[in-house]
């Protein structure tokens, strides 16, 4: 198992949103997180990425195993595409950014400033960052937003190649990526809302 989660509970803005989440991710596996908006997919991913502490439960993963891909791409608009990617490659200690360029077809854009890219091109650059992290587990939050069909296929191919090489991916998404993947419906883990407390707070909001 590259990642296993036991009885995890997490909170957003002080309110528990998910509880008793348990799953395991084996090498080569893709797990798709499903569920309606606001159910807590992003919160779950941020907790697993280590950005916020869990309310309860345990996350077992090797240190530095998880590469987190958020809604925002973390691009610097005044830097070129190549400079953006080289920066992240340097941070993660990987020198070669050529495979990432090839995987997401952004080679022709490499000398362009990130501020002049379209939304989909920015997203592709943001996803290319995952390849230079060299980390085995990808935790991705809505990775296909603003991607066209061809780019979604590129992304699915990149995830496929990553898993074939022994990696794993945890992806929150609403679309069908065309990958052989297990699905996990997060709404099954919705935390019981503390009714009384919420009403008490609302009186002051």
């Amino acid at each position, binding site marked *: 198992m590259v990642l296993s989660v036991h009885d995890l509970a997490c909170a957003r803005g002080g309110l528990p949103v998910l509880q008793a989440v348990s799953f395991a991710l084996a090498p080569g596996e893709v797990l798709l997180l499903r569920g309606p908006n606001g159910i807590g997919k992003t919160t779950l991913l941020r907790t697993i990425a280590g*950005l916020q502490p869990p309310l309860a439960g345990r996350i077992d993963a090797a240190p530095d195993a998880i590469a987190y891909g*958020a809604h925002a791409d*973390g691009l610097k608009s005044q830097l070129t595409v190549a400079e953006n990617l080289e*920066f992240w490659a340097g941070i993660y200690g990987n020198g070669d950014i050529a495979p990432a360029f090839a995987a997401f077809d952004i080679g022709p854009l490499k000398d362009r400033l990130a501020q002049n890219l379209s939304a989909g091109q920015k997203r592709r650059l943001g996803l290319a960052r995952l390849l230079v992290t060299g980390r085995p587990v990808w935790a991705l939050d809505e990775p296909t937003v603003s991607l066209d069909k061809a780019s979604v296929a590129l992304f699915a191919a990149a995830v496929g190649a990553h898993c074939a090489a022994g990696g794993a991916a945890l992806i929150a998404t609403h679309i069908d990526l065309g990958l052989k993947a297990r699905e996990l419906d997060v709404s099954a883990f919705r935390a019981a809302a503390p009714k009384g407390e919420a009403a008490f707070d609302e009186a002051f909001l």
Partner: protein
Amino acid sequence: MIRLFSRDLRLAVRAGGGFGLGLAFFLIVTVLVPFGVGPDNATLRAIAPGILWVGALLACLLSLDRIFQLDFEDGSLDLLATAPIPLEGVVLAKAAAHWVTTGLPLTLAAPVLGLLLNLAPQGYVWLTLTLALGTPALSMIGAFGAALTVGLKRGGLLLSLLVLPLYVPTLIFGAETVRRGAQALDTETPLLLLAGITLGAVALLPFAAAAALRINLR
């Protein structure tokens, strides 16, 4: 860390990076003061150390809210927090980059501006020396304040209120050293205290700032 440092430097000198704004502000403040207090040489000479230090401090304050806010807005900060460099290292690299783009130019420009305020001849060495010693503390304390206020709407105003009181010791000992130096008195004690504040800030505040960032990223 070096990568982050050089990226921040590159961002600062690119269009819209704000490099030179602090320096221009410092220049304008020191030019305005003689207009305000009148051209009396003796008055200007007496207030020069204080004005130069306050000007440098305010110029430093101008660009503080950019240290983490821009990275927070475009999502880089989340990604840096999950990257293999420790958050303490991120803070240190960013404070260092802030110093190189703000504190260092201020230090180098200050002697020229001292001329406008009729600073005593013996004071120039001390002015440059104290700014070189003191501005790293300003950047580091500022980075701590920026870490506390990252993600807040209108955090810049709150940041100034939080950070300015923390700048007081640096200001007192910095300006005091220059004043004593300009009058050819013994400067050892305030200079050592100034250096002590800087070293203490650089040693301790990265941990405090990283803790504040972790809480703000939740």
